[in-house]
């Protein structure tokens, strides 16, 4: 107990700066603010209890993400209502997207979509796609860090990312067409 105050200070210094990131990842994993809040709190308290096993000066962010993910899988995953999951072939999807976005081939329509639509599309991805999109395209982690956090090879991260983006682009394009932001198809 004598070292407790110092340990607590070090913990707060190294861990609390990552709360926003943990919360954003938790939000996309659980799909709900209330569960995300609980997941972040559980994660931080678990990390605190395991603080002795963390090697100071190493990657606290990756360590925390691993705890968060394990906690999600073990205690939260079953609470999530899983939406319909589609996984078209990547090449097929890719061709489709470019064909359908014929009037907007550079994807300006993405900027016209409201945030909630984009978040809903991310949340509808299968979990293994959703987590790579969150870590890479929202939080900006590199392939190697993501691979380490998820415990999979870098090649797996890359192929999941590629499929996840295709699927997400397809969903967003559908939204954009429905909303009249994009006229589908190529010029005659």
């Amino acid at each position, binding site marked *: *107990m004598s070292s407790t105050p110092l340990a607590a200070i070090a913990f*707060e210094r190294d861990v609390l700066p990552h709360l926003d990131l943990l*919360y954003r990842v938790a939000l996309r994993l659980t799909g709900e603010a209330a569960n995300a809040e609980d997941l972040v709190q559980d994660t931080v308290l678990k990390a605190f209890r395991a603080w002795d096993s963390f090697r100071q000066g190493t990657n606290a962010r990756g360590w925390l993400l691993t705890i968060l993910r394990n906690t999600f899988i073990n205690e939260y995953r079953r609470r999530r209502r899983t939406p319909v999951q589609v996984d078209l072939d990547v090449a097929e999807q890719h061709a489709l997207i470019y064909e359908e976005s014929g009037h907007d*081939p550079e*994807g300006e329509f993405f900027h016209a979509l409201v945030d909630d639509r984009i978040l809903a599309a991310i949340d509808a991805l299968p979990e293994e796609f959703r987590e790579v999109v969150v870590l890479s395209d929202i939080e900006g982690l590199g392939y190697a860090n993501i691979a380490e956090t998820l415990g999979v090879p870098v090649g797996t991260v890359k192929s999941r990312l590629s499929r996840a983006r295709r699927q997400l682009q397809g969903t967003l394009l559908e939204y954009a067409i429905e909303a009249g932001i994009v006229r589908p198809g190529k010029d005659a």
Partner: protein
Amino acid sequence: MSDHTLDCGEALALLQDYLKEELTTENQARVASHLAACGHCLGHAHFERNFLAAVERAAKGARCPDAVVARIRQALRSDPPG
């Protein structure tokens, strides 16, 4: 691949990694010079960039609520490590 100019197929295959700056310095430069010379592939790059920017913009704003931060700080004080 040293001293080799990329064709469109090769450039597009490397595009995702290029945008994430995950290629070697050499290949980053190779994709960049292909994009500078090829409007078709540059269009693909714009499409992917616009997509990535929209995803980040939609999700990056969320902050851990103050009430949760306060709850966590309080729990840390009443739950010493070890």
